[in-house]
């Protein structure tokens, strides 16, 4: 069976039936993404590797409990990776460091290949849209969003870490998210 042509949801169904090759394929698709979420939160390669293995072990154990109500498979994976990473971050960091998030430059992106199967085209298009949108945000908005999303910090914690007024941080986050939403809406495929 050519697992590379199967959808994420089909792979999960096979993983639920203990098919190791299906887990291997899901890992090949998303381990870079999962590892990057963990590494950007933890800034520690060893712990990011630990989170990556942990996320896919959970998928192996819990695949049968997945349903489309959890959202896309990739969202499910990054959600597990993010929460696990934030949990480790809270355990091992005594203070909040200024986060250096490696946002992908919008101009250096892979283009969908005619040989790509449906899941690849969908993923690449979504990556391109969000990367273009994020690249249009001012740096201070990107930083505040990243500290909330990847470090799990609250508005007051971000304000304290950046030495900025609370209202300024709230405004940055609100404007940043609203701008991303409107940019992504403009780019939605018809």
């Amino acid at each position, binding site marked *: 069976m050519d697992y590379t042509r199967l959808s994420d949801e089909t792979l999960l169904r096979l993983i639920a039936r203990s098919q*190791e090759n299906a*887990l291997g394929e899901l*890992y090949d698709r998303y*381990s*870079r*993404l999962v*590892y*990057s*979420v963990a*590494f*950007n939160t933890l800034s520690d390669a060893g712990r990011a*590797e630990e989170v*990556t*293995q942990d996320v*896919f*072990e*959970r998928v192996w154990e819990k695949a049968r*409990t*997945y349903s489309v109500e*959890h*959202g*896309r498979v990739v*969202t*499910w994976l*990054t*959600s*597990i990776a*993010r*929460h*696990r*990473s*934030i*949990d480790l971050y809270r*355990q091992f960091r005594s203070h909040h460091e200024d986060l250096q998030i*490696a*946002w*992908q430059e919008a101009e250096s992106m892979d283009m969908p290949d005619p040989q790509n199967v449906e899941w690849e085209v969908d993923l690449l298009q*979504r*990556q391109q*849209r*969000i*990367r273009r*949108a*994020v690249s249009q945000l001012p740096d201070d908005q990107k930083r505040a*969003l990243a500290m*909330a*999303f990847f470090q*799990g*910090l*609250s*508005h007051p914690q*971000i304000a304290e870490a950046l030495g900025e007024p609370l209202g300024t941080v*709230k405004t940055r*986050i*609100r404007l940043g*998210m*609203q701008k991303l*939403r409107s940019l*992504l*809406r403009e780019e939605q495929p018809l």
Partner: protein
Amino acid sequence: MSIERGYHVTDLLPGYVLDALTDEELGQVVEHLTVCATCQAEYQQLQAVADDLPLALTQSAPPPRVKTDLMRAIRPAGPRLETTRQASFWQRLSGVLQPRLPAIGLALIAVIALVNVLLWRQLSLVNQEARTNLRVVNITGTTISAEAHGALVMDPNGKYGTLVVDNLAELDPAHQYQVWLIQDGKRVSGGVFSVNPTGYASLELQAPQPLLKYDAIGITIEPFGGSPGPTGAKVLGGDIPQ
């Protein structure tokens, strides 16, 4: 219009989808979303943005050994090479011992009886020590988890402790149970855990202060990895006597 605008929680929704709200703000949003279709629609749009944020990261691959370790970890332990060697060893041993079996059997019974007596005495001492030294707080299930129960077992000074729970429902992969230690109404996280298929788990609690400083303990259902403050349903709780 201005009244309606003031009523909506639109300004808090970006912080809500990023988990950046304070407990008080979070309570307002959760309550409002249950009754307001307008904010619910806006929340879903913002949540879709937040869901895609990881895709904007520069991606790099983990080392190949992570996949190797993963695939090794998920495989059930297969028959080991030593099994054959052990079998032939036992066969040879059995051949040597067979003529002496009655005498060896009697000797073994005597040894087992002696060991049992010693173990029983040791167990009694341990139980006695446990009764006199360890502090145990019973934790009971709420109405939504009436079958669940647990105990917080603390050292004699009430500084450290381990939580043991049983009969809790196994959660979907995106959620975990989170322990909250409560002092003067303020809640701090004591850790997160998942239960096994029978509903059992144990967790060594992590707290900024000795456990006896807290008034009560509660357990809620939270997103995987835990929340800054309780957001989900409470499933277990109990007071910590001083």
